[in-house]
């Protein structure tokens, strides 16, 4: 058995490993390497050391988009999870048409980001038009516009995960809590939430990273206007790389920093949430 695994193992893992190397390892290493170089097209580059990283810290637009993104990720994470949980909690109750409601809430997730961005651009501009404004009038408008859009798109998806979590809570436990005279809110707090903690871990992880990585909705809805004040990190990187000749390396350096930030936050969040699960 062992022998044949050694003999045949590469046959089954080979294609996947090759695809993983071509599709992930090579671009990743190349990307990190390029952040230390100056280049116009990726095939011709010259080594410049840490120059790109030095340029990055004097870049006010980048620093602005850093905290703007952090605020965005925080707000959307809280709102999406609260609403998704609340809706899921309602939709696990038995009533007529609950499947229709579930589908309706899930549906926005099936529409692509760019399309969604343009649809919401029309809707929001239509509403703001009553006050002779548009979504790009001010960065605050853009911020809340994107929050609405993001919530609308993501709540349904997180709801599905929460429904799965809630359905796996054993009914005996809830009945037992009821017998012991626990109120509804007490049951929710002390029985249900601890038991769906794994779902909460997954959902907060997804919403935080989605918040940081959001790109297409930002591009379609505000494209950074006005004055690049509504530019989230991913769009900032894109604009640095493509929008400014000679700054390709700086864009690449930003991407590396971006990767580190998202990885660290995701790891910390994951460890924190898992520790709650373990305490059960």
């Amino acid at each position, binding site marked *: 058995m062992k022998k044949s695994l050694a*003999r*045949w193992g590469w*046959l089954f893992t*080979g*294609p996947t490993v*090759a*695809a993983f190397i071509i599709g992930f390892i090579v671009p990743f290493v190349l990307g990190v390497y390029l952040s230390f170089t100056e280049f*116009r*097209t*990726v*095939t*011709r580059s010259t080594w410049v050391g840490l120059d790109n990283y030095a340029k990055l810290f004097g870049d006010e637009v980048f620093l602005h988009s850093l905290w703007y993104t952090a605020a965005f990720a925080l707000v959307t994470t809280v709102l999406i999870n609260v609403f998704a949980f609340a809706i899921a909690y309602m939709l696990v109750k038995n009533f007529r048409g609950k499947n229709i409601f579930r589908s309706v809430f899930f549906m926005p997730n099936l529409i692509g980001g760019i399309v969604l961005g343009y649809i919401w*651009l029309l809707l929001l*501009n239509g509403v703001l*038009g009553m006050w*002779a*404004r*548009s*979504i*790009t*009038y*001010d960065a605050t408008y853009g911020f809340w516009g994107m929050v609405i859009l993001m919530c609308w798109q993501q709540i349904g998806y997180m709801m599905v995960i929460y429904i799965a979590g809630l359905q796996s809570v054993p009914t005996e436990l809830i009945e037992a809590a009821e017998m012991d005279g626990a109120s509804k809110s007490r049951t929710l707090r002390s029985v249900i939430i601890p038991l769906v903690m794994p779902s909460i871990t997954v959902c907060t992880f997804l919403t935080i990273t989605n918040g940081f990585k959001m790109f297409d909705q930002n591009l379609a809805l505000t*494209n950074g*206007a*006005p*004055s*690049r004040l509504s530019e989230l990190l991913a769009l900032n990187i894109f604009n640095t790389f*493509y*929008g*400014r*000749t*000679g700054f*390709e390396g700086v864009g690449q350096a930003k991407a590396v920093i971006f990767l580190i930030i998202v990885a660290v936050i995701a790891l910390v969040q994951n460890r924190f949430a898992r520790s709650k699960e373990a305490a059960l």
Partner: protein
Amino acid sequence: MNKRRMATAIAAGMTVAALTGALAGCSNGDSTGSDAEGKVYYLNFKPEQAEDWVALAAEYTEETGVQVDVQTAASGTYETTLKSEMAKSNAPTLFQVNGPVGLANWKDYVADLSDTAIYEHLNDQSVALTGDDGEVLAIPYVQETYGIIYNKAIVNAYLELDDAAVSSIDEINNFDTFSAVVEGIQAHKADLGIEGAFTSAGFDSSSDWRFKTHLANIPLYWQFKADGVTGQPAEINDSYLDGYQAIFDLYINNATVEPSTLSGKTIEDANSEFALGKAAFYQNGTWAYGDVSGQAVADEDLGMLPIYIGADGEENSGLATGSENYWVINNESSEADQEATKDFLEWVITSDTGRDSLANTMGFVTPFDTFADYLPSNPLVLADAEYTAAGKTAVTWNFTVMPSEEWKNGVGQALLQYAQGTGEWDAVETAFVDGWASEYQLANG
């Protein structure tokens, strides 16, 4: 044992086949067209003529059998598209730069054009851009003109009114007169059946270049003229920015829309406002002819006025004429492809089909001597010819020396903030003057 070995060999063979198949799939694109004749891939800058180029390329392929692909970048995304296309193995053989600054960005990728037909046929060979050692690197293929396009029918209707500021369009030859006419038309917009004197000054990326680049050229032109600046200066000053503010105020305060809505307005909004006769004035150029004609505005009603900003001597200035469309050939393409590209360009400017398409379908005024019999019918081009015939000096295109896209964006964003009332004019001046110095420093420091 033997059997097993054979099975291993077959399995290995299949894996390799599957992998190479997948890899070959990735590189299919460049293997098909690499025949000895070479092929042409043109990345076109001008979305207005996107379909015309595709049609012209198809005719060339039919005539000669040489494959010509034309792609057009969406408005405002040329540099982005070019950058990603150039990184591909199937890169454009022919692309465009917008002038000396654009050429500097791509100087490692451009081939010498000294021995090409497009260089030999230039009316004035000094308009080509050259490298440090005098090699010819970029050749303009179209000469364009911009100013304030106006609807003669609406302006004439205004001139009929009792309190008209002037009695003839010809009297408009300075900022004060122009501004009086614009304000008069705006005040009478209901009588004239229009929504505003000017079309919306949209700041969507499809439209903001009209202000951050083309309008910004006017104060630059007068400053360079007054101070005798040639080439690209390291610093500029604010001597004509008051005029810039005055004309911009006129645009936003006498328009079809409220200034606070400008951030979302696109070029299509402005085009349709003008084309449907809802506005009398529209700052744009000869290339917009196709977008504004053929609907409510008759060709004979299309005219163009120079942009006045209150500078001394502007009575004698004409429309802004120049080029920001230079052809360059990619020196990384194979020899055969470069030759094929040169042949294609020669055909474009010498054959009847090519000349007819450029002059009549695309409506270009070209700098080539082969076009003597192909004068364009575009009324906006004719307006420029009238100013030249009347002895007016054309305003040159100095925006080709603007230090970077970033500079233009800085000015554009400050202008928008000023327009919608969330920023001060000072910010525009800072972006204009200080921004120039710092961007120049970054690019050349």
